[in-house]
């Protein structure tokens, strides 16, 4: 099919292009370590640092908490951070898709609460098999999201209003489902066991964490090398081997240290494993499939996407369905934290924190810019603040103030770098 879709071969008959393939004004990186350094300096000045500012912010946050309470970097606390970020993180993943469109979904928290109630009433009240109930619950979330998407894409109601109406309506439905009982205890089995606080990868075997780390590192290395080979063969620019090695080593250090630390207490929570696997899949979908490309296109310019023949309405509906599905999955994760469907599920700051995670991680609210890893980075920041403050024994009112201040500070690092970027004309 690739042959059918191009028409430039006949154009190749024309005299050799008058232009050299490489623009002389493009600053090419020098070879070796010095080249990295100059490029890094240049990127820093230009504000093209990607996730680095958030990572720096995270390191600062960790350092400060560790200085305040030496338990912060303890294995048990790290396991807590990793475990508890997965539920809200799932909501954030769905939101990344919506944010990439330049839209918002205010219903995710309330859909997550509803999902817990649906799951509980199916499996507890109606005795449906636990796995079947999981599937039905996620389908409910997807259906709800598709309904939001329909009203937004086809009727033209702003997504903000549709999902605000959903936020109210699904809260009502959830309360109505639980009206007789108030809360329902979910059994610690099936998927819900896997999502629980006491479920660890490979049953807490030390090997588990290292296997995961090795898998990740190997995937990066092999993927990079294959890409390099293909690019070299095609004659287009490729990442030098030195850079591939630097990146692989960086990931390896992070992954093995994490594995070691988590292993010191209980290992890798299964909830985290599922969360990471989800991120890998979603990243693939967004960066390497036509669907993902279309999502970015619609987020960048609706009109350009439409004129390129993209079915904008369909993309919107699918994206909202994805968001609804992830909200339901997140709801199951959160229910797995307490084994209960309660009237309070999905209330509080859940919505705000999920959005904040995506945004802090670097996904733009204005569409077209971001990636799913921002859900991970953002949740790490947020969960670290929460867990850290919980350790510190502080008055709740002060906790609120500190959370606000740290949230702001975490993004200031990023924003200052982006500001440089804007003033150098890239906004």
């Amino acid at each position, binding site marked *: *099919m*690739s042959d*059918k*879709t*191009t*028409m*430039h071969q*006949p*154009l*190749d008959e*024309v005299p050799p*292009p*008058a*232009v050299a*393939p490489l*623009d002389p*004004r*493009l600053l090419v990186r020098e070879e070796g370590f010095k080249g990295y350094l100059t490029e890094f300096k240049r990127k820093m000045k230009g504000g093209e640092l990607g996730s680095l500012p958030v990572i720096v912010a995270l390191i600062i946050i960790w350092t400060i908490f560790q200085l305040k309470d030496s338990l912060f970097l303890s294995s048990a606390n790290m396991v807590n951070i990793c475990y508890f970020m997965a539920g809200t993180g799932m909501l954030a993943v769905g939101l990344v898709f919506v944010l990439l469109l330049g839209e918002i979904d205010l219903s995710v928290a309330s859909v997550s609460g509803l999902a817990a109630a649906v799951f509980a009433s199916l499996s507890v009240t109606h005795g449906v098999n636990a796995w079947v109930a999981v599937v039905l619950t996620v389908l409910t979330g997807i259906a709800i999201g598709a309904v939001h998407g329909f009203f937004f894409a086809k009727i033209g109601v702003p997504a903000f209003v549709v999902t605000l109406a959903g936020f109210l309506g699904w809260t009502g439905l959830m309360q109505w489902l639980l009206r007789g009982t108030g809360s329902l205890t979910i059994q610690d089995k099936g998927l819900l066991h896997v999502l629980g606080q006491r479920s660890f990868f490979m049953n807490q075997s030390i090997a588990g964490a290292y296997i995961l780390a090795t898998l990740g590192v190997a995937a990066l290395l092999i993927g990079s090398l294959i*890409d390099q080979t*293909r*690019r070299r063969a*095609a*004659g*287009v*620019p490729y990442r030098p081997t030195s850079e591939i090695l630097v990146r692989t080593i960086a990931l390896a250090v992070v992954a093995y240290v994490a594995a070691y630390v988590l292993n010191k207490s209980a290992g890798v929570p299964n909830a985290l494993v599922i969360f990471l696997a989800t991120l890998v899949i979603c990243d*693939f979908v967004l*960066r*390497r*499939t*036509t669907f993902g*490309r*279309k999502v*970015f*296109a619609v*987020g*960048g*310019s609706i*009109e*350009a*996407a*439409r*004129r*390129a*023949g*993209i*079915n904008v309405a369909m993309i919107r509906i699918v994206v909202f369905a994805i968001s609804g599905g992830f909200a339901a999955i997140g709801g199951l994760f959160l229910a797995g934290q307490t084994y209960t469907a309660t009237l309070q599920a999905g209330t509080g700051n859940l919505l705000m924190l999920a959005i904040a995670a995506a945004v802090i991680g670097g996904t733009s609210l204005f*569409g*077209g*810019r971001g990636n799913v890893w921002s859900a991970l980075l953002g949740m790490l920041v947020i969960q670290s603040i929460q867990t850290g403050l919980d350790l510190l024994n502080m008055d709740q009112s002060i906790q609120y103030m500190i959370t606000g201040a740290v949230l702001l500070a975490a993004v200031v690092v990023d924003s200052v770098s982006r500001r440089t970027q804007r003033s150098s*004309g*890239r906004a």
Partner: protein
Amino acid sequence: MVHVSATPVLALRGVSKRFGAVQALTDVELEVHAGEVVALVGDNGAGKSTLVKTIAGVHPVDEGVIEWEGRSVHINRPQDAQGLGIATVYQDLALCDNLDVVGNLYLGRELLRYGSLDEVTMEKRSRELLNTLSIRIPSVRIPIASLSGGQRQVVAIARALIGEPKVVILDEPTAALGVEQTAQVLDLVERLRERRLGVILISHNMADVTAVADTVHVLRLGKNNGAFPVKGTTNEQIIAAITGATDNAVTRRLARNAEATQ
């Protein structure tokens, strides 16, 4: 002028279009044959881009019929036009600022390899395609937002050439182009004609129009205002049809300059 077939590949019959209180097009007729380059000219706001957009499915016509290879068709969405084989370069370019050059070129018809995007091949072909259009772009991996006006314009033109169109519509394709790039685009138009595509070319530049077009259609205040074979028509005749008067700013300016040099 090359020999043209009897049934036009694309024909508009009595097309009208209104925006709110503005009647942008009234009963417009247009025919394009395979292997023919039709120039569409007219004053600013004459309705040229509106006409292009109705053909391209950006907004449906209010009244009138669009015929494709003799059959009447309904073009309600851009997909419909693309399905027929109409490729369009819009005056406002319509590129996604956040995607890079490759992403924009292949948007909507990405190349796949084992089900995932084949970035390597797309990147390779993009470079080749842009080189044939004599444009220097620092890298095909930088977002469109950081390209110069002319660079974007070339990307938009290149975009229209991916796929197998039967009719190519170019709405002021050379407006932002340098002399060399303009020459390349004119060459390109001629190659399209040789490959027996229908071409609609919109331009304000009479030199370009007379250089490549077979027929010139003039639009004035949303209505047809004459069609001229390029051979045997003077620029002055066309300009008079465009401005609706033989006494206009152009002629006055020419007269003044002539006086001044005397």
